């Protein structure tokens, strides 16, 4: 038995070492690195300018702000539909959009924990996408592993939540790149839209033209992380406001768990195909119009006066 276990351990160690050697070879800047990375891992900014957005968050969080800080979290509908500049035009708050593609509630919670560690935040707008409870968050996890500056423990915690081989390899590769002379290849994909800073991505896809579907009723479900997010905000003396992203052709009604929260809804947008490029994401024009309306509603909840923080 001990001979077998010894052999097994030897093989596992050798396997891990050979993977690390392989990763080092890919990471060492050569003419092949870019192609090998593309084949194996994909790239930074693969998901809607995340690299810039997430890096900018660190600057936003570490700098001083004369105004109260507001953070917007949620999935791709958040960073494409909610324009922080439109919010700032309505209220003296320094907003940042910290959305990421396919962000599940569990990842929103993790990001908020990280954000509260970095700075004091006065307001959190948690943008809830209808089928949020179904989001597994894997896409967002990939994004955050490769593009974010979450600390080692948060990244490890994130990776441990997903038994996915590619994510683990990406995680190992991310840290391998810290130790070897390697170049960060940031790929700009024009299809992802234009990054306008403060985490907002202006989508450049054309609006839907012929969307004719009778609106159907849809119940936005409760999810366990909601209470945890509320508790975290409360513990950090931060006001939590929920925003329910409109979905084209869907008439949302809410689970009773949302009753006690400050919340915003704009059902009138659910029947405006001219403002969407798919059933969830808005065009640049749509996002600006929608954000103006959200900001007007948000103003009621954001009552802190400006003071240096």
């Amino acid at each position, binding site marked *: 038995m001990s001979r077998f276990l010894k052999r097994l351990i030897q093989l596992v160690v050798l*396997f891990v070492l050979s993977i690390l050697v392989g990763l080092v070879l890919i990471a060492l800047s050569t003419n092949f690195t870019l192609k090998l990375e593309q084949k194996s891992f994909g790239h930074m900014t693969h998901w809607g300018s995340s690299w810039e957005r997430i890096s900018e968050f660190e600057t936003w969080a570490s700098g001083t702000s004369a105004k109260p800080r507001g953070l917007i979290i949620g999935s791709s509908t958040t960073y494409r539909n909610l324009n922080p500049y439109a919010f700032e035009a309505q209220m003296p708050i320094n907003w940042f959009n910290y959305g990421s593609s396919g962000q599940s509630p569990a990842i929103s919670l993790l990001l908020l924990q990280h954000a509260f560690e970095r700075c004091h935040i006065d307001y959190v707008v948690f943008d809830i996408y209808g089928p949020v409870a179904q989001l597994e968050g894997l896409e967002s996890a990939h994004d955050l592993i490769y593009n974010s500056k979450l600390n080692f423990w948060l990244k490890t915690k994130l990776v441990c939540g997903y038994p996915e081989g590619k994510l*683990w390899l990406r995680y190992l590769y991310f840290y391998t790149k810290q130790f070897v002379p390697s170049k960060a290849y940031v790929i700009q994909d024009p299809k992802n839209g234009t990054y306008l800073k403060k985490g907002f991505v202006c989508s450049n896809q054309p609006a839907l033209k012929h969307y004719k579907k009778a609106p159907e009723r849809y119940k936005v479900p409760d999810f366990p992380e909601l209470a945890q997010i509320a508790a975290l905000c409360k513990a950090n003396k931060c006001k939590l406001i929920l925003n329910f992203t409109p979905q084209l052709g869907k008439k949302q009604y809410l689970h009773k768990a949302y009753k006690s929260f400050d919340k915003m809804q704009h059902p009138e947008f659910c029947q405006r195909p001219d403002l969407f490029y798919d059933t969830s994401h808005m065009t640049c024009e749509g996002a600006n119009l929608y954000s103006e309306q959200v900001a007007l509603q948000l103003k009621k909840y954001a009552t802190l006066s400006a003071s240096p923080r």
Partner: protein
Amino acid sequence: MGLLMLSTALDFAYGFWVASPNKQKAKLFLWLSIINNLGILGVFKYYNFFATQFQEGFGLLGLHIDPLLLNVALPVGISFYTFHGMSYVFDIYRGQQKPVKSFVDYAVFVSFFPLLVAGPIERAGHLLPQVQKTRTFNYTQALEGCRLILWGLFKKVLIADTIAQVIDPIFAHYTDYNSPTLILAAVGFAFQIYGDFSGYSDIALGTAKLFGFELLSNFRFPYFSRDIAEFWRRWHISLSSWFKDYLYIPLGGSRAGTQKAVRNTFIIFLVSGFWHGASWNFIVWGFIHACAFLPLLLLKRNRNNTDTVAQNATLPSLKELWQMVTTFGIVTFAWIFFRADNLDSALGFLQGILSNWNNLGQVTGKSLLVLGASLLAIDWFLRHNERQLRVPNWQPFRFAIYFGMALAIWLKLGSEQTFLYFQF
């Protein structure tokens, strides 16, 4: 869990009663055991099927009945552990096995975890003595087990699951695809189910080896069969031999005249189809195999191919190649019924194959051929021994292959799918 415990306890008790020297008493308990085991299967697996069939039958006569339908999930592994129990009682009745005295030993035989949910269906005479004896750890056996697990995982995760990602949407929306794509999907499913089920069996065999057990083989390169009879000696061997020993032979087998042999052949294939699922498409699947087997039986050619194909050659002869291709074609045709959600879908799929010969340039799923061909190529080199993953002895090369396989499996983690045979 409760059902498994009940079934185990009952069969353990029946074992003693069936061993009675009083033949009448033994026969009575044998029948009680059969009723008991088939009753459990019938309630949980077949009740809703029969209830809806009666409803539809009465509907044709203009009578409306509203039967009570059970809303319970099929207990995991029920088809496998009931067959374990039945084989134990049958063997005791026939005097081939003595009832075991230890309930724990018997419970281990029925519920040994690697084979509980999808087989192989073990025989008491083969597994129980291994449970009862003291086992010592065997280094070589454990290494063989690890290799089998690795190979099984590779077949399941890399081949079967990758194919599933391509063909599942095709089977779900078959009306949207042209004939070549549908044919490719059917061929793809043949490889998927083989990779999936034989992969599971390899993992089960390998895991059992780690604990010092040798399980029955379930597959012996079935797609190298030269006729349907040979296919059934190589595909899901533990099930086909179970049906042969406990159904075909007691019914008279092929030695009680041609008429009875034909009847028995149809019975075992139809029952085998029905065992897989309470649905007409599985019964049709069994019927197709029976029809393909029948000419071999009538011409007494069903035992023509009992050796390994191209035994002393690297490549098969043209005749063997043709035989393998035609057998594979029949098997793949039957798989369409096995894979489809119901009989209507299977017939619709076949109609699609016959009628949608348009846009021939737009064929989805060409990658399936590469995956299938790779699996066959590896199998071809292993075909003399299904239990060993034979890799050249030069250590660096061997390790490179193992590590490559492990890495490929690792990269697919997270997108794996449930084993197909878990539903049975």
